[in-house]
């Protein structure tokens, strides 16, 4: 029998996808391999060892990296949480409050952090902080991160909210729920997958940021990227390879977890319109 004439298949697209994955992973995989190199030289292979992982956890700079990691995680958690709350509120206004004056303008404002080149944001924020005499430190990093996390949190949340018809909230109100009850009991649970992915995106963007952080951070305050940058600009060292491999593994765990969480959410959310 004839093969199914699958109009979705294009010859070569699989190959490009594999090439794409290869390009994405090759550097990281090689770094991961070399992180187990026993030799301090990055060019010579000296056998397998875990010494650089030891170095990461118990070495001289372990403390600095630990502090940087704690800072990074604290800032990312706080910035992502705040940005997610702000983005959820904003999405509710943008998508659930009808037409209002300044709606298009608001959309521009929310996407602005995404559109302004990072270096511009970094410099402008630094000048601003020094102009108003704002003491840079953890707080200044946090504020800057909240700003650029907002659009990243907003996009998936808004996309999700857009996909939920407003009839559910209307049905709730029709059944005597106040606006707040309609939000809390209906909209919020239905939006959970969007909120989770918005939060994750913001969290990871914050965790990843170097340029802006480097400009607005206070003295002695390091985040993981700035600490790594300080150590790594002069050339990649085996302990940095170990750190990056650890980061990769943490990310994979994190994303895998959220993937399964998302799947569970999907199962529960079922099919909002009841269509099949």
């Amino acid at each position, binding site marked *: 029998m004839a093969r199914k004439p699958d109009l979705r298949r294009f010859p070569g697209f699989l190959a490009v996808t594999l090439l794409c994955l290869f390009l994405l992973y090759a550097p990281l995989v090689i770094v991961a391999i070399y992180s187990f190199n026993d030799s301090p030289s990055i060019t010579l292979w000296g056998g397998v060892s875990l010494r650089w992982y030891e170095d990461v956890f118990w070495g001289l700079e372990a403390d600095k990296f630990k502090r940087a990691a704690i800072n990074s995680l604290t800032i990312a958690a706080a910035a992502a949480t705040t940005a997610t709350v702000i983005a959820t509120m904003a999405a509710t206004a943008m998508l659930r409050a*009808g037409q209002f004056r300044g709606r298009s303008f608001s959309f521009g404002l929310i996407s602005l952090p995404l559109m302004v080149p990072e270096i511009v944001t970094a410099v402008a924020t630094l000048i601003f902080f020094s102009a108003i005499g704002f003491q840079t430190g953890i707080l200044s990093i946090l504020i800057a991160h909240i700003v650029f996390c907002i659009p990243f949190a907003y996009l998936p949340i808004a996309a999700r909210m857009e996909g939920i018809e407003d009839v559910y909230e209307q049905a709730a109100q029709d059944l005597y729920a106040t606006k707040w009850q309609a939000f809390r009991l209906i909209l919020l649970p239905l939006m959970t997958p969007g909120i989770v992915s918005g939060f994750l995106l913001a969290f990871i963007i914050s965790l990843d940021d170097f340029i802006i952080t480097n400009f607005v951070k206070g003295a002695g305050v390091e985040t993981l*990227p700035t600490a790594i940058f300080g150590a790594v600009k002069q050339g990649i060292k085996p302990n940095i390879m170990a750190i990056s491999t650890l980061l990769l593994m943490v990310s994979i765990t994190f994303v895998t977890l959220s993937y399964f969480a998302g799947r569970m959410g999907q199962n529960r959310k079922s099919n909002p319109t009841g269509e099949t």
Partner: protein
Amino acid sequence: MAGLGPTGGRAARTYAGRGPLLILPAWVIIGIFLVLPILIMATYSFLTKEFRGGVIWEPTLAAYDQFFFDRGLFGDEQPKIEWTYILIFWRSIWQAGLATLLCLLIGFPTAWFIATRPAHSRTVWLFLITVPYWVNLLIRTISMKFLIRDNGPMNQWLLNAGLIDEPIHIINTNLAVQLGLFYSYLPFMVLPIYAAVERYNFALSEAAADLYASRWVTLTQVIIPVVKPGIIAGCILVFVPSLGAFLAPDLLGGAKNFMIGSLIEEQFKGAAGNWPFGAAAAMILLSMVLIVLIVYARNQDRESA
């Protein structure tokens, strides 16, 4: 990309009334901590430079003058058009454009391929594409540098395998910068295209085949025009950050040729220490980006009308 344009059609009105107030926190935060700084930056671009960094509060167009007019090495010649910065901008645009094209050439088939997997495996593919992105940009860039250097693993393996006699020289070339930009921003291309393709109505492909179109005719005449909004969104999301990028040119391109990002950075961190000029360059870059975006938004409005 979902949510990238103001949502079309009728806005849901569940929280009309005082609902719009919910936008206020976003306004306040972005207004104070991004719009105000950018306004200050705009102001600085019209002030006088202080020797060794900083500004003097005397209005002047010197920064813009410096940007657009060449008065010779000693600043006393007849003004000519200054090509230095235009060249830097042009190079940035060109590099960013090329990176965008590279991302598109690889990103479109990838996005298409993923979007046409069965629903349950799509997530896994997307996840595969995005995981490297969760690893620090810096590490990614440096890993790339490590991989492609003349004595790096890639060349060593190719040499050992006898595939090449001479190391392939990539590091410190434009190609390396391309690779770096591509590597930094690929997901920004894949995700919006994926979103568009995922909503693409495959009945259109069937209709085209039914009307005697081959696969490639279908691709160019039907599919690409229909998913164009996703392609454009992806291009913008790769192009804009690439324009301002400085890690890739610095680490992979050998910092030999300024791109806009490094030019601006140099004004604030480097020897030159010319803040008004850095601010002016930033404002010019920002205006360019905004113009592109406005044109794009206009177009979208027209298309959805």
